């Protein structure tokens, strides 16, 4: 808990629940690119759990699925967006 009163996130308790546990997913397949893309930021990096709120078990499955999809060029390793 953040008990430093001046911290901006003090009392910030909104906990995101894991979308995979909610949907009852048991295995995240690397071919579901439309699902994987939602857990990857615009540079192609895997989003951390604190942002997506995914459970640890599903985050591990998600990262292996993303890495397999990257290997098969289904999703890019890095997307250079023209800054």
């Amino acid at each position, binding site marked *: 808990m953040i008990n430093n009163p001046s911290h901006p996130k003090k009392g910030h308790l909104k906990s995101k629940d894991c979308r995979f546990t909610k949907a009852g997913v*048991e*295995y995240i*397949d690397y071919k579901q690119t439309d*699902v994987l893309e*939602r857990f990857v930021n615009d540079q192609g990096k895997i989003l951390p759990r604190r942002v997506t709120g995914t459970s640890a078990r599903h985050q591990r499955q998600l990262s292996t699925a993303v890495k*397999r999809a990257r290997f*098969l*060029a289904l999703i890019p390793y890095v997307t250079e967006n023209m800054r």
Partner: protein
Amino acid sequence: MKKDFYEMTYILNPVLDEEKFSELVSFVNKLIENNGGDIVEVDEWGVKKLAYDIDKKSTGYYVNLYFNAPAEAIAVVERNMRINDDIMRYLTLKYDAKMLRYYDLKKKGDLPVVFEEVESESETEDDN
């Protein structure tokens, strides 16, 4: 001899013509069958755009297949695929119980939907 369930996805060089694709696909299928495996399902995704260039090519012919095979067959199949330079990349996965249940669900078509799309198809919230 004990057989395990495998999934393999591989990418073929896109510049080949149609019958060369089917020839290569049957080449891989024969390879698996000769080594004591049997093909459950072959699903060709056709020429798709690659997310990044693989040896100077931006598209590839994807083939995804599921098969049962003894463990020793995999090394032989992969070695032959490595020799053939029209097969750009391949990924073989052994399916464990969890993945098998996922595969059966996919066959039945009632996969748990993680993000329901905008068109509101009936949200089957079954947790298996």
